[in-house]
């Protein structure tokens, strides 16, 4: 089954990541890969994670959209191999 990569652009501060991660347990998101990188401008950061396709993506995306620190969300649907190196290659 195909998985999804969720890319979140968030405000760059130490409290942004905990808000995202706090949604994981309640939505049974146990990502194979999770990556956090600051943008060069230091004003925003990007969080990438791989999400299993059998989860309720629409509901999870709505919940993520409501987080105040999220600037935007993009979803990549056709991600097949979720090994870490492939994930990074895919990103670049």
């Amino acid at each position, binding site marked *: 089954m195909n998985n999804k990569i969720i890319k979140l652009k968030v405000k760059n501060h*130490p*409290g942004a990541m*905990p*808000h995202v991660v*706090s949604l994981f347990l309640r939505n049974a998101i146990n990502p194979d890969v999770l990556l956090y990188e600051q943008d060069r401008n230091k004003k925003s950061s990007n969080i990438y994670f791989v999400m299993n396709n059998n989860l309720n993506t629409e*509901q999870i995306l*709505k919940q993520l959209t*409501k987080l105040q620190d999220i600037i935007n969300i993009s979803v990549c649907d056709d991600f097949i191999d979720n090994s870490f190196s492939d994930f990074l290659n895919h990103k670049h």
Partner: protein
Amino acid sequence: MKFNGAEIIIKLLERYGVSIITGIPGSANLPMYDALYQSNKINHVLARHEQGAGFIAQGIARSTGKPAVCFATSGPGVTNLLTAIADARIDSVPVIAITGQVPISLVGTDAFQEIDTYGLTIPITKHNFFIRDVSELFYAIPEAFKIAMSQRPGPVVIDIPKNIQQQPYEFNEWPDFNIPNNSPIDKPAIIHIAEMINSSERPLIYTGGGVITSDSSAYIKEISKINSIPVTSTLMGLGSFPGDDPMFTGIPGMHGARYTNNIMMQSDLIIALGVRFNDRATGKVDEFCPDAKIIHIDIDPVEIDKIKQSTVSINGDIKEILKLLIPDLSENTRENWISFIMKQKEQHSCFIHNDPWHPSNLIKYISRIVSADTIITTDVGQHQMWTAQSYPFRQPRTFLTSGGLGTMGFGLPAAIGASIANPGKTVICISGDGSFMMNIQELATLADLKIPVKVIIMNNHHLGLVRQQQEMFYNSHIFASKFITNPDFAKIADNFSISGYSIKQNDDLAVLKDALLSSGPCVIDLQINHEYNVLPIVPSGEANYNMIGG
């Protein structure tokens, strides 16, 4: 201009119209208290426990719709406050909690009274802030008000280390504050909804707390009248439609009347406004209103299709949507549907009991004594359900109850907050002996203020709803739900310099009437029979047609 962080906080709160702050001082928030000492625009209400402060703030916010502010110190001050914040989150109440934190240099060192306030409050707030620099106050405080009040309201925590409260800061101007407008409304969907309503045979309006938040009651009345649509309300929606109107059909679900659940089962169109299809209201979701199409209107996109798939939905402000909807609705008398409803209400008239001391009858007696604008708060348990079933709430924001979290101990501090924010109105806290003990210390706060809060304790010497479940679903293994010791509540009140009354079964109820009509605060210990159960009851997880009793 030059002020320290604490002075900036208080001056910003003054600018945003805050006139009351409730809380408890401690080491980490003392600079803010020192700034508050110098304010002539904000009064402070000293609570006796931070949870009490949180619920006093909730009483202000729930009864007025405006944001309310509470203060707590770091560590235990914060952990004590958590329940009230979580309660505000699930019931969408705009409370802003400003908490003191140990100085930045000590954060992360397990310093005295240090706790990770930010981490603890992530899942129970709409948003939270940890302030690392005094300049951030100019962003965080206006943002907190915006976030608390915009879209679906909710609590915000601002955690501020002590050194930042003490740090001087020079600046030129104060930040602006305005709440952003709600997003535009999907007009084609409104036309579609109007057609669905006009062509339906058995429509039912189903109102939740969102109707009260969006101040839409007048429009609900108008729609119900034009198109002859009966109205049912969730617990949080009580007061959104007059409880004594013939078109009102009660609350559905676990403790709803038989007729309410029957009417919902028969409906072919549920117009769900500001509801979240909570399990206590829907029963087994798959069998909730099986023949009905669902129109779901809510400001929060997360609620749409979360539990019940809607046929049509609109994400937006209920009031703005209803204003656009009304001109497209045709007049309709719906004689068959209305006569079915009136027959159901007649055949299954619940909550009528011969014993004048049945709690439902006592609640109806109270409702006849006091005026329609009286604010009722409750705690959580049997007395809460009896109040929801039998008190005819006639106006929005007159029923304050912990609906989502179900927090025992909510009633007294919420009543204090409601009374502070509504001078001249009577506020009655209907409580139980179990719940009342959970925040009984706030009697001291009530005595400080001498405001007309009337506490009625429906005293059955039990955790009544637990006892009821043990009797009905656990082979009558009544265990840990009977109190071996209860205080004399009237004497306790007297000791706080508050008038206390003890009323035993079959005493003259004139004592209750006189106490309610007296001027100051009072506590009335009303002894009730512990064998009464809240009926009907739908066993947890079952469909709403499986009602027992009533």
